[in-house]
């Protein structure tokens, strides 16, 4: 199941045509370009900016990679990468760890954002400013694996009876709709939904996970690959990471230009939201880490331990199996 | 009830089928129609029952115009049209059901007639298993049980053997004389027409019109012996001439 390189992918490529100066010297070696496929976890958004920048700026070509980006609208990137239908994917630390514990051979190779940007949000009029206020409220969940356990941990920590919080899986409706009716608070990524609230001028209360308990400051999202690719084509992974890294560096330095690249690549997405989100997110990609993408083993250790404790995984997963920094430039 | 049809004209898709028909029935009269196949006899019945509206002309019941009005006569169509989803008994009870007659009574009457119609034992069968003649008899029974003053019968005995046919003849004449129902009867058998009717209309080929209207000068009640009387033979000759002259 590791013939992904020689098998040309049949997808209509999303490539925004490479017209940058960098592309000028590429054609000479274009025959030797390695084909690679990258699968997203959701629709293109500012978490993915670096990838699109690298593609548009020709960073991949310079690294000898002919990259195809696949946009699935639904989850499922992990098994697809594991099965060799894509070489790289983007997902969450939770996903990679649980997958690994289930025997799915994937591991994280870079953290996209250093700090965890999700948390519990609620419209300001609900007056939920601390987890203590969750009591007697209705929570709108998305059905994630770790979600209930995290919520319960938080509630226990604040001595709120978990039974007093109603947990409704809200699925496909958005935060703004849900909180119009029976839902009081929801788990959102501030960089997207929170920014949309800003754009709309709606005031929300945000309780960041990382502020509740440092163990929840895990990486989301991460870029991952499969064991097969990492073992058999380390040079591909390295080149890929290098290009991606350059992409994110660019996004960090020039948020506005990066936003435009993403908009061009996904014109169907709201431009206003992308611009605002990019501006908010760009400084957070690297944060105060020494370089983009670096992952701390402690973060992985702690969170895996917590997952084990919460019985989300049945057996311990050693950190060097699920993550590696070795491909980072 | 007196029925009179005046100056009736009808066409399908611009092609004239009934050119001009004038026809009248006195209360309690038994009148037959004979005419070549495809001339427009069934069409006339459809006009009388109100299933179709003529291009021109009047249909008067006791002077009242009945054009397009329905439900005033019991009509036995040329096809048996038994409903496959109803048993034979349910099928023959269609009339009482529609006129909302007392159910128990209707069922009893229907059941009592099954032996007479040679359908005994088939009450609860679906019509699919009936023979051609049995279907026709069931359709006739259904028509009879839909009790209206005017009975329109479109070849009710076409699929019956001579014996059964005779049984039906005498039954029909019997109920007709008892119940004073006016009958308009389409048949292809000249003998049948003479034996049963007070009067006989002969229709011409399509586009049709009445080409002969003969009285049958035989007394009632009729019996088989009459079929060899000179009166009988004269009428028969008259009818045959009319039919053969058409060519």
């Amino acid at each position: 199941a590791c013939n992904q390189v020689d098998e040309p992918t049949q997808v209509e490529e999303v490539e925004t045509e490479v017209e940058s100066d960098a592309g000028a010297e590429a054609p000479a070696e274009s025959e030797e370009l390695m084909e690679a496929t990258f699968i997203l976890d959701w629709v293109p958004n500012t978490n993915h900016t670096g990838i699109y920048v690298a593609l548009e700026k020709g960073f991949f070509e310079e690294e000898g990679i002919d990259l195809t980006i696949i946009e699935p609208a639904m989850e499922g990137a992990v098994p697809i990468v594991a099965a060799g239908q894509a070489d790289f994917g983007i997902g969450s630390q939770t996903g990679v760890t649980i997958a690994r514990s289930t025997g799915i051979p994937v591991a994280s190779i870079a953290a996209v954002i250093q700090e965890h940007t999700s948390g519990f949000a609620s419209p300001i009029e609900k007056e939920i400013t601390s987890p203590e206020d969750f009591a007697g409220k209705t929570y709108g969940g998305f059905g994630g694996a770790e979600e209930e356990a995290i919520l319960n941990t938080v509630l226990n920590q604040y001595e709120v009876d978990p039974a007093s919080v109603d947990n409704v899986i809200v699925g496909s409706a958005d935060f703004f709709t849900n909180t119009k009716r029976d839902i009081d608070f929801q788990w959102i990524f501030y960089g997207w939904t929170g920014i949309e609230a800003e754009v709309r001028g709606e005031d929300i209360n945000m309780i960041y996970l990382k502020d509740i308990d440092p163990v929840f400051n895990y990486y989301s999202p991460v870029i991952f690959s499969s064991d097969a690719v990492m073992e058999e084509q380390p040079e591909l992974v390295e080149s890929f990471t290098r290009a991606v890294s350059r992409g994110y560096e660019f996004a960090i330095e020039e948020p506005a230009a990066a936003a435009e690249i993403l908009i061009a690549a996904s014109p169907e997405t709201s431009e206003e939201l992308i611009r605002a989100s990019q501006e908010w997110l760009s400084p957070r990609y690297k944060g105060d880490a020494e370089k983009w993408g670096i992952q701390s083993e402690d973060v992985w250790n702690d969170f895996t331990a917590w997952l084990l404790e919460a019985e989300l995984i049945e057996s311990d997963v050693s950190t060097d199996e699920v993550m590696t920094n070795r491909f980072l430039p | 009830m007196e029925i009179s049809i005046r100056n009736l004209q009808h066409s399908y898709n611009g092609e004239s089928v009934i050119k001009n028909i004038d026809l009248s029935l006195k209360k309690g009269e038994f009148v037959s129609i004979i005419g070549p196949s495809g001339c427009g006899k069934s069409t006339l019945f459809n006009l009388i029952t109100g299933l179709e509206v003529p291009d021109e002309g009047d249909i008067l019941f006791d002077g009242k115009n009945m054009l397009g009005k329905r439900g005033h006569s019991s009509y036995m169509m040329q096809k048996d049209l038994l409903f496959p989803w109803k048993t034979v008994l349910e099928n023959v009870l269609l009339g009482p059901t529609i006129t909302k007659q007392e159910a128990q009574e209707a069922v009893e009457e229907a059941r009592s007639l099954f032996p007479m119609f040679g359908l005994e034992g088939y009450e609860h069968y679906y019509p699919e298993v009936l023979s051609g003649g049995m279907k026709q008899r069931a359709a006739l029974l259904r028509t009879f049980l839909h009790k209206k003053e005017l009975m329109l019968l479109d070849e009710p005995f076409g699929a019956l053997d001579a014996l059964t046919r005779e049984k039906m003849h005498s039954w029909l004449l019997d109920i007709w004389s008892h119940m004073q129902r006016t009958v308009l009867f389409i048949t292809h058998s000249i003998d049948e027409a003479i034996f049963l009717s007070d009067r006989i209309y002969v229709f011409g080929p399509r586009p049709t019109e009445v080409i002969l209207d003969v009285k049958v000068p035989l007394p009632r009640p009729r019996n088989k012996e009459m079929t060899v009387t000179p009166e009988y033979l004269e009428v028969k000759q008259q009818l045959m001439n009319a039919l053969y002259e058409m060519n």
Partner: protein
Amino acid sequence: MRTLRRGISFAAPAVIAVILFLVIWEVSVWIWNVEEWILPAPSLIFQAFFDTWHLLPDHIWMTTKEAVLGFLLGIIVALIIAFILDISPLLRKSFYPILLFSQTIPIIAIAPLLIIWFGYGILPKVLVVALVTFFPVVVSVAEGLQSSDRDMIRLVRSMGGSFWQVFWSVRFPHALPYLFTGLRIGATYSVLAAVISEWVGASKGLGIYLIKAQSSFATDKVFVVIALISLLSCLLFFVVVLLGRLMMPWKHKSHKK
């Protein structure tokens, strides 16, 4: 006794076919060495079922309730609409686009509307199931009502039969086989529709269980749910078939009683 034996001989081929299907699946998984997180073998799915069955009854019950209530509502609505479409060609022509429109809305795209209007209770699920199942019933019944034997209708009309009498004595029985064709399709969809409707927002039901299983990469549990959906659908389908036999005895028997 006889009904039992007939029931068995009726179900036997289906059961054998299903078993055969499972065996082929199992063997294929072994032969091609398909990893279990891609496509688990039936044996693993059974395993997962027995390991987790205590979690299931609540979810099953919820989804069944939604599916059955929704289907019933769908049938009622379908009959009414089919009837309306039938009484006038004008209504038919004007209604059809709106009907089509109702079928071309992705449920999850109108999830916000459903939630705002109906909340998170059972109501929006029932409505979604009704929305999905009513359509095949409408189309079939409309066709059935249209295609009645004209001469039979004429017969009843000639007897002075009213619109309703024509309807009940000819058009409706004639449309019954069409109705049941539509019901068979609708029954098949109803359970899956209930599952999907739960994705709009719920706290119980097979749909919720499915999402949770999927997000923790428990493919075996995902397939447990799929199997349960199949089973429930088959059951509902079977009820419809049985009802069809009861309501259309003339299709199978030569006499009544």
